[in-house]
């Protein structure tokens, strides 16, 4: 058989018929293979191996079958093929053919899917879209009888057709409109509804609804308020929120819905459920945003009627706010289109008048809480737009003012002020958002005089103890003055004068709120009306300052501090600072009291510092001033005359100021200062033949210490003695130990420390180290001399901070603790090592290594833990004190990480008499308890016991300590598990009760809080 060989070759050829047969033979649970077959056919078509005709024919017989399911299946095959066919494959008329073909069979299952696939092909024409749509609307009205999947395809088809062939469909006009309403009627499936809603949305937006508005509206509003709980693992992930939003869009889609939407929505408000209310509010909001002013105008009355109820009788605050927002939004919307009714009265006006009228009614009962809401409503409206503001102003201010005047009690007047305040607040916002030129007509202008007068009267003319009332008045006045372009400068000036009086004369003890409020107002005004402050407030404050200073420190302190505060405002700063310098000169000339000069200097420093963020080199402007002051102080020191500048406090203040100025001056100026001023000063006073013969001369060390801090240790810094430290250091040490005046001695100590830490080179450090070694605590004369120990400690500090010889030094000091004579002193001195020092700071160029603190702590702790148990009973307290001194000044985290070693020592420390130590320990415990309770849990009982002892024992523990102890105790509850604490509750309560009788009030208060905290543990007792 020759031809036999050919047969297999023939079988390679794709056979649509058998393909179709195979497809038809697949059953329900072979969807994949079925789809696979469809895909193959599709690709065959695409590669033109077969023709579309062939395919159609291949299913011809099935499609003619009278069995519906067979027909559907065959169509499904076709649909499957189309789906996998790239949209370009089919020619125009092919598409046309299939379309007609499918449309004819549209009732058969599968046709719709087919069309779905087909219509996405871009050769699918508008006409086809229309035919298809028609077919659907005409033949598929029984849609609700079909299963969900089919319904979905149909609705999707309509949806997609509308999406892809909008214009064509639009030409169908009402037919489509009515058609879809019927088609979609009664749909329940969320997935389908999502499509329905978007179709309706488009229709509502783009169709001419003619007289079908209501039916269209009803077709979707019937779902409102929509509720839906998605099934556990819903593949479509449709949330109730999605549905809500789509539906909301629909309702808001067309102004024409307004006449139905508003009544029905507002009706829904009667429902008690807050959630429904919220949904309604959101929907109303959506409508207001899209509907036109005219529509809104028609419904504004009803809207207000229902919303006001929601506001005045709101069960939940947030609901009231929601309602407010809508009232406001409506106003804002009405303002955007200045639509008017036939009588030409703008809708806004009508709306606002109506509301204002009712709110005024409520305000007649100022005490009633509805009055508060009333003013909130008015404010909400006023803030929506400046037109609204104007209307409201016109509508209510007259009556409000007369009500206010008529009110009998302060209480009711207060509530009116509250109302004014809220509305003026709104005004400020509006005016700032929409600036008005002084030319346009502003109703508020009409009332400003009265308001100004009333508020002023309330503020200045009421009994001082009516605090809240006067504060309100002040706030109103503040708001009024802050409304741009309402008050003239003169009028604001008037208000400012009142504020001045208050900040200067009010009893700040009794009425701090009023005073600080006044100050804040002044500061706020300085932004917008700085000139007024410069013309009125600043002079007034300066005038309050004495020339020679006075014993009544309060008087000038207040003035000065307020000036300082004003000086922080950029546009006042320079003037204030210069004026203050002026006062300072005057004060010095009139040899004013040192306290006064000190205050001025402090204020100046504060003012200048506050400008640093704005201008890095602020100091530059005042270098001359600084230099003059230094010269002056130098001269008086030389002359030895008595002068404010010979007072140590003043010198320190001056030192700080100068230091600050120099450091914030330009580099050139700074260098210059280094060379001239400093050298001048040091030449004159430090290395003179009669070193520090007199106290006055000694005092100059204070200033020079600050200079030392100010200058930078660049190479070639003019430090005359920097070359060889030995003489100068030994000099200073000698003088320091000799010095009797603590203030001066401290300055010397600082000087030494700064010198060694900041300037000393290796040789210098060596000198320092040797001094430490040989300061001669060995010989008992020095050993018991605290001054020697101080020098030792400060020298050590200077080196330790820059981490030179740290460990060696520490070992040396720790060793001294054991020594009979000096041990106790050295122990106390340990606190110096890490204590903050005003002069020895990074910013002053001191060398402070990050790890120094940690090294000191760990090294000391390690040593003490070792030595403690072995130490003699007399020595132990010294170790604890030394440790306590360090604990005070190191990072809490560091402490926490060592609680294990610390605990036993801390507990020991609570027993020793030294107050300072106990204090330090308690604060460490407090930190541990609050930040890492576990670290102390095992010692809790002893800690509690010790704290109680300290708290109860008035005789041996001073108040502050008792206070610390009680506070620490009250931190404990809540930090530990109940079962840890319960065993202690009884004891704690028993003892804390005793503390309730402490002689000191603040201790008692702490005890009260402590007891409350602990009682709370007991409360949840057994049931009843």
């Amino acid at each position: 058989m020759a031809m036999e060989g050919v047969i297999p070759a023939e079988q390679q050829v794709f056979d649509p018929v058998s393909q179709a047969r195979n497809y038809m033979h697949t059953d329900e649970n072979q969807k994949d293979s079925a789809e696979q077959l469809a895909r193959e056919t599709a690709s065959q078509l695409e590669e033109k191996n077969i023709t579309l005709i062939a395919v159609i024919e291949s299913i011809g017989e099935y499609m003619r079958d009278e069995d519906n399911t067979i027909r559907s299946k065959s169509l499904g095959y076709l649909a499957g093929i189309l789906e996998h066919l790239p949209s370009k494959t089919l020619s125009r008329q092919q598409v046309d053919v299939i379309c007609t073909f499918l449309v004819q069979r549209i009732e058969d299952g599968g046709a719709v899917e087919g069309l779905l696939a087909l219509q996405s092909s871009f050769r699918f024409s508008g006409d086809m879209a229309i035919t298809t749509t028609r077919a659907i609307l005409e033949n598929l009205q029984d849609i609700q009888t079909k299963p969900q999947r089919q319904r979905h395809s149909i609705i999707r088809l309509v949806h997609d057709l509308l999406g892809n062939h909008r214009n064509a469909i639009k030409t169908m006009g009402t037919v489509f409109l009515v058609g879809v309403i019927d088609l979609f009627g009664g749909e329940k499936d969320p997935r389908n509804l999502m499509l329905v809603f978007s179709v309706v949305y488009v229709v509502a937006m783009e169709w001419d609804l003619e007289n079908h508005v209501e039916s269209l509206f009803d077709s979707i509003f019937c779902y409102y308020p929509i509720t839906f709980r998605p099934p556990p693992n819903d593949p479509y992930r449709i949330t109730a929120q999605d549905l809500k939003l789509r539906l909301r869009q629909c309702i808001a889609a067309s102004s024409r819905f307004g006449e139905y939407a508003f009544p029905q929505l507002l009706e829904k408000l009667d429902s008690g459920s807050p959630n429904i209310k919220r949904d309604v509010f959101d929907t109303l909001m959506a409508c207001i945003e899209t509907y036109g002013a005219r529509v809104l105008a028609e419904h504004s009355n009803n809207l207000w009627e229902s919303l006001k109820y929601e506001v005045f009788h709101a069960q939940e605050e947030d609901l009231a706010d929601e309602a407010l927002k809508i009232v406001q939004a409506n106003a804002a919307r009405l303002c955007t289109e200045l639509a008017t009714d036939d009588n030409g009265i703008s809708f806004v006006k009508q709306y606002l008048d109506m509301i204002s009228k009712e709110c005024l009614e409520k305000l007649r009962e100022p005490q009633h809480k509805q009055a508060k809401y009333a003013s909130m409503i008015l404010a909400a409206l006023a803030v929506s737009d400046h037109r609204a503001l104007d209307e409201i102003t016109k509508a209510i201010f007259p009556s409000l003012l007369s009500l206010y005047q008529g009110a009998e009690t302060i209480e009711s007047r207060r509530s009116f002020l509250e109302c004014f305040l809220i509305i003026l607040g709104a005004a400020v916002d509006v005016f700032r958002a929409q600036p008005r030129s002084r030319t346009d007509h502003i109703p508020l202008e009409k009332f400003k005089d009265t308001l100004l007068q009333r508020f002023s009267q309330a503020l200045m003319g009421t009994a001082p103890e009516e605090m809240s009332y006067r504060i309100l008045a002040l706030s109103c006045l503040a708001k009024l003055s802050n409304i741009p372009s309402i008050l003239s400068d003169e009028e604001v000036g008037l208000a400012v004068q009142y504020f001045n009086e208050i900040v200067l004369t009010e009893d700040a003890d009794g009425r701090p709120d009023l005073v600080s409020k006044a100050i804040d107002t002044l500061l706020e005004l300085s932004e917008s009306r700085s000139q007024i402050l410069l013309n009125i407030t600043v002079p007034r404050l300066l005038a309050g300052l004495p020339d020679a200073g006075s014993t009544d420190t309060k008087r000038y302190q207040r003035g000065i501090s307020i000036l300082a505060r004003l000086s922080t405002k950029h546009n006042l700063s320079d003037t204030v600072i210069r004026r203050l310098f002026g006062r300072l000169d005057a004060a010095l000339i009139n040899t004013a009291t040192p306290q006064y000069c000190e205050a001025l200097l402090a204020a100046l420093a504060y003012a200048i510092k506050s400008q640093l963020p704005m201008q890095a080199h602020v100091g530059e402007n005042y270098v001359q001033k600084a230099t003059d002051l230094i010269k002056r102080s130098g001269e008086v020191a030389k002359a030895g005359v008595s002068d404010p500048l010979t007072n140590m406090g003043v010198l320190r203040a001056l030192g700080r100021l100068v230091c600050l100025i120099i450091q914030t001056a330009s580099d050139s100026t700074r260098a210059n200062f280094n060379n001239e001023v400093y050298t001048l000063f040091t030449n004159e006073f430090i290395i003179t033949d009669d070193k520090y013969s007199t106290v006055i001369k000694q005092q100059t060390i204070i200033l020079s210490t600050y200079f030392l801090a100010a200058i930078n240790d660049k190479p070639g810094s003019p430090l005359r003695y920097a070359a060889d430290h030995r003489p100068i250091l030994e000099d200073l040490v000698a003088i320091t130990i000799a010095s009797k005046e603590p203030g001066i001695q401290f300055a010397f100590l600082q000087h030494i420390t700064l010198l060694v830490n900041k300037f000393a080179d290796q040789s210098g450090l060596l000198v320092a180290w040797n001094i430490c070694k040989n300061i001669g605590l060995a010989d008992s004369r020095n050993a018991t001399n605290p001054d020697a120990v101080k020098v030792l400690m400060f020298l050590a500090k200077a080196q330790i901070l820059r981490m030179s010889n740290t460990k060696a030094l520490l070992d040396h000091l720790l060793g001294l603790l054991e020594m009979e004579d000096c041990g106790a002193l050295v122990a106390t001195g340990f606190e110096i090592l890490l204590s903050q020092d005003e002069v020895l700071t990074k910013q002053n160029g001191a060398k402070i290594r990050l790890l120094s603190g940690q090294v000191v702590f760990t090294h000391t702790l390690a040593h003490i833990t070792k030595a403690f148990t072995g130490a003699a009973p007399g020595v132990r307290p010294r170790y604890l004190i030394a440790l306590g001194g360090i604990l005070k000044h190191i990072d809490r985290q560091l402490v926490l990480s060592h609680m294990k070693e610390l605990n036993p020592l801390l507990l020991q420390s609570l027993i020793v008499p030294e107050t300072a130590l106990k204090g330090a320990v308690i604060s460490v415990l407090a930190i541990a308890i609050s930040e890492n309770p576990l670290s102390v849990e095992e010692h809790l009982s002893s800690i509690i016991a010790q704290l109680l002892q300290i708290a109860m024992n008035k005789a041996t523990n001073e108040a502050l300590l008792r206070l610390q102890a009680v506070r620490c105790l009250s931190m404990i509850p809540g930090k530990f598990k109940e079962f840890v604490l319960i065993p202690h509750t009884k004891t704690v309560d028993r003892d804390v009760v005793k503390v309730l009788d402490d002689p000191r009030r603040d201790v008692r208060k702490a005890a009260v809080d402590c007891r409350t905290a602990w009682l709370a543990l007991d409360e949840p007792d057994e049931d009843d």
Partner: protein
Amino acid sequence: MESIQNANPTIRAASDLPTRRRKASFSTAASDPLGIFTQAIPSPSYNFDPFSSSSTSPISSDSDSEEGTEPIDTQEIYDLISTISDPEHPLSLGSLAVVNLPDIYIRPLGAQDLQVVTVEITPTITHCSLATLIGLGIRVRLERCLPPRFRVDVRVKEGTHSTAEQVTKQLGDKERVAAAMENQQLMGVLKKMLETCQ
């Protein structure tokens, strides 16, 4: 508290109430409302000297001397109870003028330093059934906060309440108060009232 008894009490603004608490927090700021002198002048560090015992706190200095003792006075009592919340309003008894500084009395009792504190309360309305509860709250608060040598009498001010005498007698009955304090449910309510105490 089924239905609110007095929906609209007159409210006194917190800033109008007499208290020592606010003063305390401001006393430094009095002359120096902005704390310039505490900020600008770092604590005069030449006073810092571990060797001089004077380097301790201001309050400790006179703590044990006589002038250091601050006896418990009516203001202190007021501060203890004025911040209790009213059971039906989110407001303090002070701001509702239920407790008022002038209506607090302290008198010595007998030989030792026993003291009697009398607090006269003014219910917001004359038939407020919560008067007893409020009184109880005050009594509990004071018994917890005052040393045992104080006897606490809470009474309803004459003419301010229809059943003033009954309420006062109840509040005076130690046994009843004790029993009340063992009633968890009641204590639950009291706890709420006392939570706001400062």
